């Protein structure tokens, strides 16, 4: 593996780390443990030690690379602008080529999910159908009562309980692929990136995204040939698969000829804006990847910056707070726009929680693969959320949304508090003349 790491790691980036330690306070795993190896500076030192031949890339090294949430909060904190996100992906890519250590259920999930399901929109649909069937029939009640779920680790049982109702129809099947702007000539033409999990578990959010964009004056198209963004693959060290998915998406949106590509999932958006980096070794795709990357923008940002102004009002007084999506904040650099929109809701009070900018522990499938650390981080998060006395925790990413639901289930009061996507919250409160 040392050789593979040497090949895959960007040595310039490793050298750029000057070990000043400014990343330490930004890092959630360092904060939890206080252990240098659990910090970006520590992990880069480990990567460099392997590349330099001082350290053997053993099991402990592999575990440490997987322990990182990849929330990338260290990147804005870094004076030298080290591309940590790329380094950790390169390290995981190398580890993945060699590892034989995954637990059986992680291996099983990875293989079916990454290769068998996510890349295929039709299979995602099928998964949605199956999930819906499961949730809608007595099967769910049976599994919950019979104790079958007890065969699975506890955190998977919890996940099973909070999973929202799946949908067999995605956004296109529900409302069609083309939508005209409301209120006069269109401001711009937007392609919706609907996501894979997003479109099965949060179809309603995708529908509401289209409607909000329409209300704000955008023509919206949803190219039906698009597929999974590849983020889970890239973050877990399956870079080749991620690149193939990227090429397919670029082709789909180029054909649609859009001005912007809107996302409502920070995790997907962060990879989409970096398609140019992902495909940098591929000269054939360089220009197309750059075309794609510069058009990607989060829905909140698009509404605030380019859309016709929308007004929102809440019928009953409510308090709400916001959990930043790490990738939206640290990679797409958007933290102001969602807040601007939330503050526009008349009759409701936005209440910032302490450390809203810190990872919630969801981090892709981190909460499934690293339940212990994820659980510790979530516990702190919920303390801060509870302290705001908010009735709603809003998020901009499906992973964070599920994690907040889990947090409320585990540490909060599900009767009093709810986790909602910003788009759904806003659409419901849209002031209609």
């Amino acid at each position, binding site marked *: 593996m040392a050789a593979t790491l040497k090949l895959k790691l960007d040595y*310039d980036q490793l*050298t*750029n780390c*000057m*070990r*000043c*330690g*400014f990343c*330490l*306070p930004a890092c959630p795993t360092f904060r939890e443990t*206080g*252990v*240098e*190896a659990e910090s970006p500076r*520590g992990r880069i*030192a*480990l990567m460099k*030690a392997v590349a*330099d031949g*001082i*350290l*053997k890339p*053993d099991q*402990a*090294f592999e575990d*440490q690379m997987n322990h990182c949430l990849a929330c990338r909060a260290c990147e804005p904190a870094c*004076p*030298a*602008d080290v591309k940590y996100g790329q380094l950790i992906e390169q390290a995981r890519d190398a580890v993945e080529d060699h590892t034989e250590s995954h637990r059986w259920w992680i291996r099983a999930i990875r293989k079916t999910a990454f290769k068998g399901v996510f890349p295929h929109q039709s299979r995602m649909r099928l998964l949605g159908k199956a999930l819906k069937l499961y949730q809608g029939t007595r099967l769910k009640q049976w599994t919950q009562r019979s104790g079958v779920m007890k065969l699975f680790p506890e955190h998977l049982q919890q996940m099973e309980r909070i999973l929202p109702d799946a949908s067999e129809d995605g956004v296109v099947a529900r409302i069609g692929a083309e939508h005209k702007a409301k209120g006069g000539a269109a401001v711009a033409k937007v392609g919706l990136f609907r996501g894979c999990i997003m479109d099965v578990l949060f179809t309603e959010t995708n529908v509401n995204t289209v409607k909000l964009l329409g209300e704000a004056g955008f023509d919206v198209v949803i190219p039906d040939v698009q597929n999974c963004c590849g983020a889970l693959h890239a973050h877990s060290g399956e870079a080749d698969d991620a690149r193939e998915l990227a090429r397919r998406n670029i082709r789909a949106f180029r054909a649609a000829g859009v001005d912007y590509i809107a996302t409502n999932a920070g995790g997907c958006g962060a990879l989409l804006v970096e398609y140019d980096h992902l495909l940098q070794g591929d000269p054939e795709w360089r220009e197309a990847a750059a075309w794609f990357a510069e058009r990607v923008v989060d829905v909140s940002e698009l509404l605030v910056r380019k859309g016709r102004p929308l007004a929102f009002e809440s019928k009953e007084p409510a308090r709400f707070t916001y959990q930043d999506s790490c990738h939206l904040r640290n990679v797409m650099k958007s933290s102001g726009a969602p807040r601007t929109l939330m503050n526009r809701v008349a009759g409701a009070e936005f209440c910032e929680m302490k450390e809203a900018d810190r990872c919630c522990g969801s981090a892709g499938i981190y909460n499934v693969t690293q339940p212990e650390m994820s659980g510790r981080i979530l516990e702190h998060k919920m303390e801060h959320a509870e302290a705001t006395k908010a009735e709603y925790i809003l998020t901009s990413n499906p992973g964070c949304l599920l994690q907040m639901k889990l947090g409320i289930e585990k540490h909060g009061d599900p009767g009093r508090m709810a986790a909602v996507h910003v788009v759904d919250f806003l659409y419901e409160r849209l002031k209609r003349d």
Partner: protein
Amino acid sequence: MISEQAKQELAAVLGPDYVKDDPQTLVTHSYDGTPMLQSLPDAVVYPENTEQVSQTLKVLHKHRIPLVSRGSGTNLCGGTVPVQGGVVMVMHRMNRILEVDLENLTATVQPGLNTKQFITHVEELGLFYPPDPSSMAVSTIGGNIAECSGGLRGLKYGTTKDYVIGLEAVLANGDILRTGGKLMKDVAGYDLTKLLVGSEGTLAVITEATLKLIPPPKFKKTMIAMYKDLHGAARTVSKIIEARIIPATLEIMDNPTIRVVDDFAKLGLPRDMEAILLIEQDGDPAAVERDIERIESICRGESADRVEVAATPEEALKLMTARRSAFTALARLRPTTILEDATVPRSKIAEMVLEINRIAAKHNVQIATFGHAGDGNLHPTATTDARDQDEVHRVEAAFEEIFEAAIRLGGTITGEHGVGLVKAPFLEWKVGAAGMEMMRGIKQAFDPHNLLNPGKMFAKATRKRVVIDRG
């Protein structure tokens, strides 16, 4: 290597989870914030209290194993690189604020406490702890004390040493020493408190500190003055001090720094200026207004090209951002950033900046200079690439001349970073043979077997910067 026996004894003291010698832990404690230095320790320990520190040192003393104690490892002098192996002691678990005494205006804290957390805590209580090293978001109070950290407010408020009034520390043989206390006056014997502040972990391991707090200033005002002539800027510094005005902050940036910062932060800085002074005064509103007015007229008198006083806190923040961006901007230029710490009397600021520029040109290296003009503490910063051996040698040669020039101008080799490993070869230039002899005697008295942070401060008479790889 440390023996199995010693390891077992350490585990008995600290608990097996807190004695580590796996490769991952060793690699991640082989460096600090200093570029180009790395050396693996033999083990890393994480004590929880003073008693454990004492027992640990007893074990190490018995087996003659060296110890390097450290906080967050942000120092820039190689002070926490374990160049002779042995044990690294991480103080992170000892991170509590034990007491804030509102009657005596003191705080008693453990060494692993994060500096910014501490400052935030006392500010919430309406009090003020002035030392503000640029690394404070990361660094620990223990590390600040060990290196006697300074910061932007040093001119008016002093540095760490001015706020440490009592210490608990563990000696090399494991004995526990207490110095000072919650006392503003204390002349009972030698001042061991001040001796330990800035002793860089070579005399004892600090386990508790009592710090002096003061009331916060009521009001502050920020201004910036720009000069086409470096001497005008430098004369302004001397004139302000001569006029008996001590600003809270008085910072300088030279032309190379201005250009880099402007490229990075896009603040619209004047790229044709030779120097910028950034000045902040705090205190009672009337006094601050009066001082700022007088400073402004001194600036104009010294032919400042432009003088701008911030009208709002946002504007002030923008001005301070320029100074704070210096490090970040420079760090992005080239892969390796070597930030040094030469200090001269404030009247020699201009001469020193010119010397630095001359030396940089002579050795064909890039050096930008910014720093605390008000206290003469300059940070000539070389941007280079550690992989280019030839260039690195030129940088080292340049810095050697820069330190020489600082001494020649009546200055010193370090104002706030410490001697550590990097500047050990130059210490004698500053303190002389007699000074070295005295310092060795003190070291001998505290640590007869040279177990505490060996290899630091006292070099083997070489004058060259050393690059060590014990890998």
